[in-house]
């Protein structure tokens, strides 16, 4: 198959799968999540779920692990995150729906 027909076949395939019935196996979905999110701002379900953007996430870990985390978050934030007593058993979860928001490029290109 030459390059031209390869392109053509691929184009047909891509066009075929660009309908609403498709989604990527490993494709990033956050942009689509935002689309959901934008439709849902101010909308709550099950009596109180609401949407918020997550700016950073820090793992809760077991005692003895404090200070071993690396990455963008500093020790201060880490200690703040782990301030509640660490327990074994059921864990609390916020009722809010946290989303990563748009990709950086999309964010920058949003109309003012």
């Amino acid at each position, binding site marked *: *198959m030459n390059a031209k*027909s*390869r392109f*053509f*076949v*691929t184009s*047909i*395939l891509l066009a*075929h*799968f*660009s309908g*609403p*019935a*498709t*989604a*990527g*196996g*490993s*494709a*990033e*979905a*956050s942009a*689509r*999540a935002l*689309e*959901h*999110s934008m439709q*849902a701002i101010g*909308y709550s*379900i*099950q009596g109180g*779920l609401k949407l*918020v953007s*997550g*700016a950073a*996430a*820090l*793992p*809760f*870990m077991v005692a003895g*692990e404090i200070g*071993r985390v*690396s*990455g963008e978050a500093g020790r201060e934030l880490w200690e*703040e*995150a782990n301030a509640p007593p660490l327990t*074994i*058993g*059921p*864990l*609390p*979860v*916020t*009722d*809010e*729906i*946290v*989303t*990563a*928001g748009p990709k950086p490029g999309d964010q920058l290109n949003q109309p003012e």
Partner: protein
Amino acid sequence: MSRARKLLLAMCLLLPVAAWAGNVPSAKGLFEFRQIATLSKGLERALAARGARVAIIGRVGLPPSVMPPGVEYSHAGFAVYSTIRTADNRMVPGYAVYNLYQGDARTGVSFLMQDYPVDYFAAIHVLKAGVVIPSEKLQRELAETIFSPVYQSLHNPRYSVLANPFRTDYQNCTGFVLDVVFAAIYRTGDPRRIKTNIAAYFEPQPIRVDGLKLAMADATMADVSTDDHTGPIATATFESIARFLVNNGIAKEAFSFVVEPTTLYGSITELQL
């Protein structure tokens, strides 16, 4: 055969492989936000009720009809119990998801991303999540690996949906999860040691795809490569990773979390392995 007929034949042959290989994301999700939110929040609550700090979660990102036999979940990542700082500077408890994405353009190049369950499940075909909660010990080791430089070092951006998990030529989302799991178990970042142990103890999922279809997909799609396989095609899948963890006694629990689309009733069902 005319050129048009050849192209039509090629298109028909390639459809299942093309779809499974990730393909072009839809412009719009199949489900409404409230359905995706119910699945993602319900999953978080199911994990939290079990005290899970790290879990491996799978999503059905492609129509079940195009998936190879034995493969239901098209993507996998790690859910990590976290304190999340919100954009309005509050701290809330929940799960963050760490995973490898190929990206919408399907260039055969992947990247690592941290997002949240509602992002992770935004583009799914079934309101269902596969879940494996590792043993407490493995959860601790996974957390340590994910938040160490080893995590980034295990990423190979050369993406192939059919990546051979015994080799380092290519990597897919599930192969990355597998590498991180073995790095955690053996407390190493050495790729050779990781791959040696994967070859010794992990049984990948055989992928039965017609040879002609595979050859054409390999030739036409950037995210399908087969030159890292010398025999039958086999790759890491969410199911094969779950089997490995369960069969080796290092899974605390494995299940599917399913939401009924109309009533939004969530339930725990058996994970088909």
